[in-house]
């Protein structure tokens, strides 16, 4: 049954973080009335590339009262029965094409009481499983593939132990948009500002695919306030520091810190990359920025927008805004003023595009992408503060992705106890003959939970890579006339 519900903005769990107090007006109201319980609501509906209707999932099903204090009890269960080790190993092994690729991979674990251990490495999937089930890490990070086994790095002559390869990664964090979103700030997110992530994913995925020719990009929800991208192509894994930095810079349009007012500056000619990115932003701009964020509504927001404009335009608009209050009309006028200026003045004036980009274009942290040895949170890791699992995002259903729908560890552990449905029982019978009892049970287990569909996304991704590898092998053997 599909229905849209009149949705309330969600409440995020309180955090003791370094951020300043969020000024999310409605949220503080809710917080005052609740005790640290996470309650979510359904998703807003937007018109996007495809017009779809949403399944509104109510709160109790997705979160089941997560409490950080229960992690020590939940984690052992998660790692013994739910974590998709087989797929995980399949991923990081990359078809076993390069010798010792999995064995030389660095993992780092954050254990209870903030104990952090680096340079973990494993010879086999089994060893990985045993170790994780023993240590029950709160957080798992993935690092680079080194020249030697990371857990033996102390025995290697200094200077010889080097990071050789790693996926090209990107980290988009909602905090970096604080100056342009009015609904939340800091670690908070809501369905309104989540659109920023949708836009970011669309723009970056297109660029990585079309411009750079990368075909295997895994997008993952970080568990709280952002998304990560893992570019797994062989060429990407072999990129140098300089190359990673160049890719990140190519993808950066919003530049400057607190001291910079105008963070996007466009000039002739407008590069095709910018044009393509603008196309994406335009699809979402009206609904997200004009309506949702109300950037041309309140005086404070309007002032911020006007600060980005040339003096003469600003004056004219201020006057015009005295009488015209409708944000869409205001924007249309702003836009046509830009177009007019372009036809008359010699230099290109792109301020309406600059505004759209400053408010919507993805902001990435170049430092995360640059380093070959940089450690990034692993997919299927748990986020200790929210309890949510870092799940892969299905790009075919991107507009329907709802971070508040993502299962928490408490939910999926609870789902484990539920009795099997009929179809699961049939499934079981089929698989009886195929595999070992233990594996069977593991396969069944996550499948019974809300985690299943996200593991499926991961499976599809892995299939894609395997397919490519096969293609490569065929191509090479053809080249060698090896029929």
């Amino acid at each position, binding site marked *: 049954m599909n229905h849209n519900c009149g949705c309330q903005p969600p409440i995020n769990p309180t955090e003791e973080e370094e951020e300043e107090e969020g000024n999310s007006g409605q949220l503080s109201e809710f917080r005052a009335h609740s005790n640290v319980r996470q309650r979510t609501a359904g998703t807003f509906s937007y018109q996007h590339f495809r017009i779809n209707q949403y399944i509104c999932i109510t709160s109790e099903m997705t979160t089941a009262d997560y409490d950080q204090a229960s992690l020590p009890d939940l984690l052992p269960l998660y790692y013994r029965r739910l974590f998709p080790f087989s797929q995980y190993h399949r991923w990081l092994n990359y078809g076993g094409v390069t010798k010792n690729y999995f064995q030389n991979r660095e993992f780092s674990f954050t254990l209870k009481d903030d104990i952090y251990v680096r340079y973990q490495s494993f010879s086999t999937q089994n060893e990985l499983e045993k170790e994780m089930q023993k240590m029950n890490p709160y957080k798992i990070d993935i690092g680079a593939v080194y020249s030697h086994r990371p857990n033996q790095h102390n025995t290697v002559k200094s200077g010889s132990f080097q990071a050789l390869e790693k996926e090209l990664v990107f980290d988009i964090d909602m905090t970096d948009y604080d100056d342009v979103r009015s609904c939340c700030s800091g670690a908070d997110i809501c369905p309104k500002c989540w659109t920023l992530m949708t836009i970011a994913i669309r723009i970056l995925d297109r660029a990585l695919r*079309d411009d*750079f020719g990368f075909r295997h990009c895994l997008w993952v929800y970080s568990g709280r306030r952002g998304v990560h991208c893992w570019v797994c192509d062989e060429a990407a894994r072999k990129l140098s520091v300089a190359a990673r930095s160049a890719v990140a810079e190519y993808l950066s349009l919003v530049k400057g*810190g607190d001291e*910079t007012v105008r963070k996007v500056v466009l000039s002739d000619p*407008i*590069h095709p990359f910018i044009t393509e990115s603008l196309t994406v932003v335009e699809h979402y701009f009206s609904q997200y920025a004009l309506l949702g964020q109300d950037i041309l509504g309140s005086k404070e927001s309007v002032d911020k927008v006007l600060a980005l404009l040339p003096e003469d335009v600003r004056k004219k608009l201020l006057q015009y805004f005295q009488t015209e209050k409708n944000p869409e009309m205001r924007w249309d006028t702003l836009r046509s003023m830009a177009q007019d200026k372009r036809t008359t003045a010699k230099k290109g004036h792109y301020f309406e595009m600059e505004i759209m980009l400053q408010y919507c274009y993805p902001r990435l*942290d170049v430092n995360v992408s640059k380093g070959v040895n940089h450690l990034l949170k692993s997919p299927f890791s748990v986020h200790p503060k929210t309890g949510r699992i870092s799940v892969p995002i299905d790009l075919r259903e991107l507009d329907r992705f709802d971070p508040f729908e993502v299962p928490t560890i408490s939910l999926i552990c609870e789902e484990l106890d539920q009795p099997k449905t009929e179809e699961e029982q049939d499934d079981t019978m089929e698989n009886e003959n195929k595999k070992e009892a233990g594996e069977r049970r593991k396969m069944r287990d996550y499948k019974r939970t809300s985690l299943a569909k996200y593991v499926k996304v991961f499976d599809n991704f892995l299939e894609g890579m395997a397919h490519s590898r096969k293609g490569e092998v065929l191509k090479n053997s053809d080249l060698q006339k090896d029929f």
Partner: protein
Amino acid sequence: MQFYSRRKKLIGNSQTEQLYGHCLQFYGQPPIENISLSEFETFAVDRLKLLKTVENLGVSYVKTSELYTKKLDADFSNLNFPYKIEASTKDDRKPQTGPSEYEKRRKDHISHFILRLAYCQTEDLRRWFIQQEIDLFRYRFNDLPSKNIQDFLQYNNLHYHTISIDEKKNLMDKLITSSFAVSGSTVEGQDFYKVPFQDALDLVRTRKVYLNGGYVYIPHQDIVTIVLNDFRTRLSKALALTARSLPAVQSDERLQPLLNHLSHAYVGQDYSIQKSIGKISLEQIDPLSAKSYPLCMRQLHRGLRDSHHLRHGGRMQYGLFLKGIGLTLDQALQFWRSEFVKGKVDADKFDKAYAYSIRHMFGKEGKRTDYTPYSCMKVILSNPPSQGDQHGCPFRHSDPELLKQKLQSYKVSPSGISQILELVKGMHYQLACQKYFELTHSIEDSWFSLNHPNQYFMESQKLLGGPGAGVKVEVKREDNPATKPPNPSPHQTPGPGNLPQEVAAEITEDLDSFFQDA
């Protein structure tokens, strides 16, 4: 890789012509002849002066602008390096005064390899050397007429594939909008090369080229960037190899002092050795920040006091600066903890998360590197600040409007402010900071050339007679050449022979004074 063979080798004229057939080279092959120690020294010092000039000009001027080229031209000819291609054709006709083209090219070749020995040892040295050699190469390559470019490409086996006329037509619009320099006629008239993006990173980084499917499409006129990348890769690999063979060379006692001196002369004033450790108390920091901090540090300090927090970039830049002005590790820990605790961080969390990195800065954790405070060059050029950051150079990274407001709030005179803004517009960030120094200390002319925030602090304290003035600048030197006894080597080369000790000391002193001025 072969190093200076001590065996005598006669090199015939025809061979040398082949070796130096082009005025520009990739330095693929090391020289295989004998040279005297004095030549060794002179060549090295001259090239180092050249590279230093390249560095200084590179910070103050845009690297491809006319002003830059003109200035570099002048320095080039003074130091007798090959640069103008016409000189080679003039060789036969007119009698040459001064070194011939051939001699200039030989000097270029040999001096490059000598400096490789001096600059291969640490990551920092390598990075610096590669950066200057690349800038130098770019300058010289841009100077080549197009026929010589073709020759050069062929000579060095760089094959990049051109795209068909049809493909050009299809991509016409995209090619034109991707680059300011490409017009319709460029597309029609020139060959376009399809190059893997990894070979054209500079163009990709600045988005000055059409990128599709992992390939960039480059007109023939822009091939220089590709060539530069190739050069950078080769040089980088070569330096790594050189480093491994270094022990053999360092065992030669004639070379060791000079090589050490060359590389340390660059590192010279790094403010990591201070004589005023512990002379500054924490209570003095607030007033000091208003009086003697350069603008970048004042901004960071202000940011820290206001929000009781700084992000990583800011913590590094400011933390190392504090170390440089003489704070001890304990003082630093106290300082940061007291500030962070006023914010959202409790003492426990501070100890867990932040204390480690402060100790790291002081070389007490990890691989125990004693990090040096950032120079102006580093602050200006690396790690630009983004949303929420306070680090960087305000003259470089702040909006001019905001910079103006800030200076006004610090009571700088309006005429002073416009002078500063002029300098900023001309990209003379360090000069702008120096102007700021002059205005805030009410002096007419600063006598020093600013290139380090700690230098600013030290000079200010000297002027005001404060506690931080006790910092003594030590130029690191492992061997004092003047005290080394001369080495009687059985393989004396004919010619000028070994330099008498006094002359050797003189040369190294000249080197010192040259760099002190910088």
